[in-house]
């Protein structure tokens, strides 16, 4: 757990947090640019990008490499992740969310670095995965190194993580506002001025590095003159709903693929290679599925670039291959493939509208609305998505249209599947963020970590009078009855006894009283305690019900209050 060290002065915090935002922002931005450059260089060198492929005159060599490159890349990724990381899997935004929400340290630096390298290899070899997840992790990884400095600032870790993530997104999309909002919406999940200020600085620094120092071109320019018909907004909403359904299918596919991988007989080291082989084979027929597919994003905004059959097969192929690659252990994100599947789906929907004779304002707005609706629903970031459209296209009309689709998509996916794929992945690892960070934090606090108190213990065959005397002597209203091997049998209450009685304890004990287990969480304890009246609750070991000690109602409530207070303080601190 994050310990908030001794308070420091406001000017000190101001200076340190600003420097942190600026320094992290610059560093993360540079490394993000390096990451993107490496991937693009590998894509050229390994003949993944169409621009490189078309220059190869030997078609047989090209076909051979198309299958070989993703397979060998998968082998390398499998080796890297399985042999050199502690988690034996790629790290991603879910791990960052976990660290920020539960105030726990990020996974170790070496695993993080290896995972980032594995992502570069995955993307470079044309696996059907995204680059933004690894970039988010790369930002958070650098932020986590600040943990080693003793900054004496409350919540320094989560603020640093937010800074790193914001700078990564700001650089990658050339969209500083979206970077800022993403860090709050997806990672921190609250808005406090304390985190907001340094994150803004980091996001702006990332933007300056990408835009002013390196003069990166805008990521996605599109011509759009405005929505012509009012009824189209209803169509955008419908499109959002359709995207939501597709997003649910996409999420379920990713999860199903991971399950398939774990029951398959393929050794974990070889799983990415197996997925790579499938990608390569499919690419022989459909070369568009290789890599991030920026060309497809562009084509999807051009009317008539695809036939309906082409679009349908690409949507299905890209969705399934992405699920396969992620489930079988390639390192990479879900966002870019979602953008791609979304935009192709949008183009398909527009084609169908046209075929049905509906007058529309052109393909671009449908393609882009669908793109961000699907992608934002996958990662649970509606606000970020709206801002990304705005900052990328600088087109107000387009943003308003996309906004409608985004909101409907997120609403429905939230109801049907959950807040995002990350939350679903975390839930599978036993962290439920659907009830907020307080609840998730309390679910992580094990009762064994609280201070258990001693209690009066009696044996079932002792006489009630001796038990009574001991309870009076220790000034307790309750005694715990344990057997000869110290296993819990029941509870003896003072009010049930009279000191004259000669009967044995077992005739008077309550065996159905409330007990807790050492591995129960604070959250479970709070729920179990509803309606509880009594002095204290016995805590047992889960395996053989050994009696370990008692917890008073007060101890549990104090711990609960601490968690809630810390969360509220983090959310409301100014500086």
């Amino acid at each position, binding site marked *: 757990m994050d310990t908030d060290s001794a308070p420091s002065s406001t000017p000190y915090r101001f200076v340190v947090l600003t420097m942190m935002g600026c320094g992290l922002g610059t560093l993360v931005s540079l490394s993000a640019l390096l990451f993107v450059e490496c991937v693009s260089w590998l894509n050229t060198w390994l003949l993944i*990008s*169409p*621009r490189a*492929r*078309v*220059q190869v*005159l030997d078609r047989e060599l090209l076909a051979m490499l198309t299958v070989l490159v993703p397979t060998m890349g998968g082998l390398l990724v499998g080796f890297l992740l399985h042999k050199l990381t502690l988690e034996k899997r790629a790290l991603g935004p879910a791990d960052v969310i976990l660290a920020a929400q539960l105030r726990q340290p990020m996974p170790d630096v070496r695993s993080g670095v290896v995972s980032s390298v594995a992502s570069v290899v995955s993307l470079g070899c044309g696996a059907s995965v995204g680059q933004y997840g690894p970039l988010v992790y790369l930002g958070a990884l650098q932020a986590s190194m600040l943990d080693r400095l003793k900054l004496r600032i409350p919540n320094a870790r989560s603020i640093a993580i937010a800074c790193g993530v914001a700078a990564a997104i700001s650089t990658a999309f050339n969209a500083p506002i979206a970077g800022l909002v993403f860090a709050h919406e997806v990672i921190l999940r609250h808005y406090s001025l304390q985190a907001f200020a340094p994150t803004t600085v980091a996001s702006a620094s990332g933007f300056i590095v990408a835009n002013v120092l390196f003069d990166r*071109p*805008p990521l996605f*320019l*599109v*011509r759009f003159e405005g929505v012509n018909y009012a009824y189209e907004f209803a169509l955008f909403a419908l499109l959002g709903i359709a995207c939501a359904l597709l997003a649910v299918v996409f999420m379920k596919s990713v999860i199903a693929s991971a399950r398939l991988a774990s029951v398959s007989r393929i050794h974990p080291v070889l799983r990415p290679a197996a997925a790579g082989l499938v990608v390569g084979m499919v690419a022989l027929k459909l070369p*568009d599925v290789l890599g991030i597919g*920026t*060309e497809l994003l*562009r*084509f999807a*905004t*051009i009317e*008539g*670039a*695809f036939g309906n059959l082409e679009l349908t097969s690409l949507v299905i192929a890209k969705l399934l291959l992405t699920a396969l690659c992620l489930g079988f252990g390639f390192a990479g994100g879900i966002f870019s493939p979602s953008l791609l599947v979304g935009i192709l789906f949008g183009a398909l929907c527009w084609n169908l509208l046209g075929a049905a004779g509906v007058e529309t304002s052109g393909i671009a707005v449908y393609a882009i609305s669908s793109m961000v609706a699907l992608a934002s629903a996958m990662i649970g970031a509606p606000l970020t998505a709206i801002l990304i459209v705005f900052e990328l296209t600088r087109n107000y009309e387009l943003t308003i249209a996309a906004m409608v689709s985004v909101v409907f998509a997120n609403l429905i996916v939230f109801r049907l599947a959950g807040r995002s794929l990350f939350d679903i992945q975390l839930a599978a690892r036993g962290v439920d963020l659907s009830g907020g960070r307080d609840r998730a934090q309390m679910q992580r606090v094990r009762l064994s970590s609280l201070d258990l108190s001693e209690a009066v213990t009696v044996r079932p065959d002792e006489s009630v009078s001796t038990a009574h005397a001991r309870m009076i002597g220790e000034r307790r209203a309750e005694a715990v009855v344990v057997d000869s091997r110290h296993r819990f049998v029941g509870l003896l209450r003072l009010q049930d006894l009279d000191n004259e009685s000669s009967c044995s304890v077992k005739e008077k004990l309550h065996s159905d009283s409330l007990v807790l287990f050492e591995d129960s969480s604070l959250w479970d304890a709070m729920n179990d305690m509803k309606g509880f009246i009594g002095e204290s609750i016995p805590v047992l070991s889960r395996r053989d019900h050994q009696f370990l000690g008692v917890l008073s109602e007060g101890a549990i409530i104090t711990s609960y209050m601490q968690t809630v207070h810390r969360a509220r303080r983090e959310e409301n601190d100014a500086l």
Partner: protein
Amino acid sequence: MRFSAGFSILLILTSVSAHADESEQSLRIGTWGGAYEVAQQAALFKPFEQVSGIRIQTTDYTGGLEVFKERPPPDILDMLEDEAEAACQAGLLKPISHASLLAAKTSTELQYQALANNDDFSLEDFHLGVFGRCSVAHLTYSTLIAYDETAFTGEKPVRIDDLFDLQRFPGKRALQRSPAALFEWAMMAEGVPLGQIYDLLSTERGLRLVTRRIEVLRNQVIWWDDPAEAVALLRQGDVVMASGYNGRFFDAWSRGAPINMIWDGQIIDRSVWAMPKTSAADKLSTLAFLRFALQPERLAHVARLIPYGPLRYSAFRYIGLHPDTGMVMSDHLPTAGHHLANALYRDTRWYARTSRLREQYFNDWINGTVVGTD
């Protein structure tokens, strides 16, 4: 460095032997004719003959690699950069490097004393990537669309999309019989940003979109092969728009032809000097010519006569005014700031390696084997 030192000693030795039987030395240079060659004659060839005593003969060259089949081929060729790259890959050219040209200073100046100057030939003064493996770039030119002002008395075409807009701008177009530039313009008209044009043209789908776009022009095109034809067709009123090189259009315009250029969508490329491998020309005199032609004053002199941009930074200080019209020539270069709003720099490596594919696709379309459909 050891190589270049040895190389220059070798050059000195050969130059001495060449000097011994000094008769009428000459160089044959293949170049593009028309206004461009007139400018080269005045700025490069005549001055070089004067200071070196080497006679220069020019032969007509309009691009392509057919020229290498000639026996003997020209000693020096003024080539398009992508074609030089392709010729270099095919082993048709002699290697050239900055080091070899730098090292040639002593030997050439020993031989042709009038060439001596204080040009330090520093690599920093040259634009990035000027030196290829077998070529040295010497100027930037632009491929763009010009139109006949008298054909459009009302609204004028100002965007590259207007090339394909027969409703608003009806009339025939003169276009080069080549996929070069035309494919890029078709992509631009689809709204593809400059940075992605070559990415998209690398795909089957991109080529499909190109043919769909150029299909509208099918019966409205007069194809040209020699760039001089483009200007002539426009001047004669045979066409209302023509693709071509900015220098030639400028030349016609500066002589009073009612021609205007659409800078939107201009494609900037470079011309290079290259030396065919099978030419038996004296190495020293070729190097002497290249060193001479690459001097900042010479590059600027060309640009003063025809608006093709020099590729040495220092050359821009010498450009000045057009001798006949008195126009500030730096304003008319393809790389002038106000021409760059939507300018595409040609990817010459990509061009060199995809030429066969693009040619084939283009010819299939011209022959009607591929028909662009919506």
